[in-house]
């Protein structure tokens, strides 16, 4: 008997464990719920200092997201096929100085962190987490074929994990996805179906296909399990901060699930006594060209008005976000806010993050960093507050948006004099040459 099951979040009906995301009674979404007393028992082993015992129990495990197995919907006897997650949580002093402004630079430098899922393996985005959890159920549910609708990162992750598990994969994508994301799906031998439409149209089509085929659609009939994988971002942030919660989290939003699940992760850790209870503000980040959730937050609406996406941040280009209602609720209840940034701001922010912290994020990372800058300037995030920015994907997948930003330099002959001449001609180079001259006393 599993210690988790699906329940309708509106009417509370139990649905056991099965590939299903909707309650037939009231048509509302299903969610995985857990027996927390049992989890407390498993982690604490009835010790006197349960908090210490639980933390030590987890700390002894390998550094990957499976260290939180009790808080994930995994079948009995599950053996992880890959070590996933436990990506770096990095302080970001130089970025903080730029985002918070000169006066507050020193304070902010100590308090700004980046959760860097640009290096999440195997496919360099946080989607590896959710797919790994969803596919843990494929054997139990009798699937030999898995599928998804995707804006790119999920396509990569489903294709790679399916290859690893020996499953067939069908991937449905909008036809205008970044070339690197399409190639990075095809290489794993998946069947890639390009749809002449936007993500919302692809997703609607997949809902229809899922009704007729015995396929495990990770973000349709496996969605309640899949979404639980996002919690591991929250678990790791708390553990890597020394088992404490931050003051603020800035999260990019597409369907809106990640921000909701990080909030759930913090609540579960609090419930289990692994962290002290404290208020955390949740901030959502979107691209202005596809900002249904941030628009709702800023206009005070409880519901999303769908939009037609028009942004270079294609991984966030979901105009009718499935979890939009819940994301709005999570943001508002926490006292947070949501902002959006233009495409030029996305590019500037990708460059800022790369130049200050050495992290090359995809467009969603640019959205998050750009949004964080706005939130600092609006004093919604204060320099003295511990703030975590979630970087969810790798810039090598979206290099096309930087085409034209950098010029290819004219090659020079392999001669020292040529190089000296080159230095003189470049502004930065001229400064380097002057410094060199000063160093030798010229």
């Amino acid at each position, binding site marked *: 008997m599993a210690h988790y099951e699906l329940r309708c*979040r509106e009417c509370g009906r139990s649905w056991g464990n099965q590939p299903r*995301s*909707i309650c*037939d009674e*009231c*048509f*509302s*979404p*299903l*969610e*995985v*719920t857990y027996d927390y007393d049992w989890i407390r028992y498993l982690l604490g082993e009835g010790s006197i200092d349960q908090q210490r015992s639980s933390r030590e129990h987890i700390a002894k495990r390998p550094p990957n997201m499976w260290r939180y197995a009790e808080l994930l919907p995994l079948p009995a006897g599950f053996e992880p096929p890959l070590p996933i997650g436990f990506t770096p949580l990095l302080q970001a002093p130089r970025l903080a100085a730029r985002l918070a402004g000169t006066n507050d630079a020193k304070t902010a430098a100590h308090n700004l962190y980046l959760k860097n899922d640009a290096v999440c393996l195997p496919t360099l985005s946080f989607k590896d987490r959710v797919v790994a959890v969803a596919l843990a159920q494929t054997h139990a549910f009798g699937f030999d074929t898995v599928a998804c609708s995707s804006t790119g990162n999920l396509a990569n992750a489903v294709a790679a994990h399916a290859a690893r598990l020996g499953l067939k994969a069908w991937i449905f994508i909008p036809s205008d996805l970044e070339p690197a994301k399409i190639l990075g799906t095809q290489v794993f031998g998946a069947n890639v179906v390009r749809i002449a*439409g936007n993500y*919302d*149209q692809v*997703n*609607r089509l997949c*809902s*229809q296909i899922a*009704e007729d085929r015995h396929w495990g659609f990770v*973000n*349709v009939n496996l*969605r*309640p399990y*899949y*979404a639980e994988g996002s919690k591991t971002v929250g678990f790791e942030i708390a553990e890597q901060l020394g088992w404490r919660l931050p003051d603020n989290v800035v999260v990019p939003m597409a*369907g809106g*699930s990640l921000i*909701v*699940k990080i*909030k*759930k992760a913090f*609540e*579960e850790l609090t*419930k289990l006594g692994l962290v002290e209870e404290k208020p955390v503000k949740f901030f959502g980040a979107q691209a202005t060209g596809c900002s249904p959730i941030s628009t709702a937050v800023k206009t005070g609406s409880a*519901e999303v*008005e*769908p939009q*037609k996406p028009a942004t270079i941040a294609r991984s966030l280009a979901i105009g*009718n976000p*499935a*979890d939009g*209602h*819940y994301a709005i*609720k*999570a943001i508002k*209840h926490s006292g947070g806010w949501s902002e959006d940034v233009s495409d030029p701001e996305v590019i500037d922010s990708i460059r800022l993050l790369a130049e200050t912290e050495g992290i090359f994020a995809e467009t969603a990372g640019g959205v998050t960093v750009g949004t964080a800058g706005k939130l600092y300037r609006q004093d919604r995030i204060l320099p003295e507050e511990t703030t975590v920015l979630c970087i969810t994907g790798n810039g090598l997948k979206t290099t096309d948006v930087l085409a034209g930003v950098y010029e290819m330099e004219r090659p020079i002959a392999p001669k020292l004099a040529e190089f000296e001449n080159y230095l003189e001609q470049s502004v930065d180079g001229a400064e380097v040459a002057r410094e060199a001259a000063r160093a030798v006393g010229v």
Partner: protein
Amino acid sequence: MGITVQIPTALRRHTAGVSTIACAATNLGELFSVLDEKFPDLKPHLRDEAGQVRRFLNIYVNEEDIRFLGGPGYSFQDGDEVLLVPSIAGGTSSSS
């Protein structure tokens, strides 16, 4: 004037297994009236107590979300195909 309406699997137990119907509704309000009459058990699954379309139900006309066409104000055209599709959401905060 005629349109067809596709009923998703999740709702077919309220329609005795019927997956498609044809009718002459000219707008969303009339379509709901037709469905109410044919399948009384379906009514509470499509609209809330205030008569609003349920949050987790998306309605498409010829593959386009009806909200982009004017929502309840959209006048159906002869031959329109209406799809009722559940919105796939992934759950929410455990404490809310």
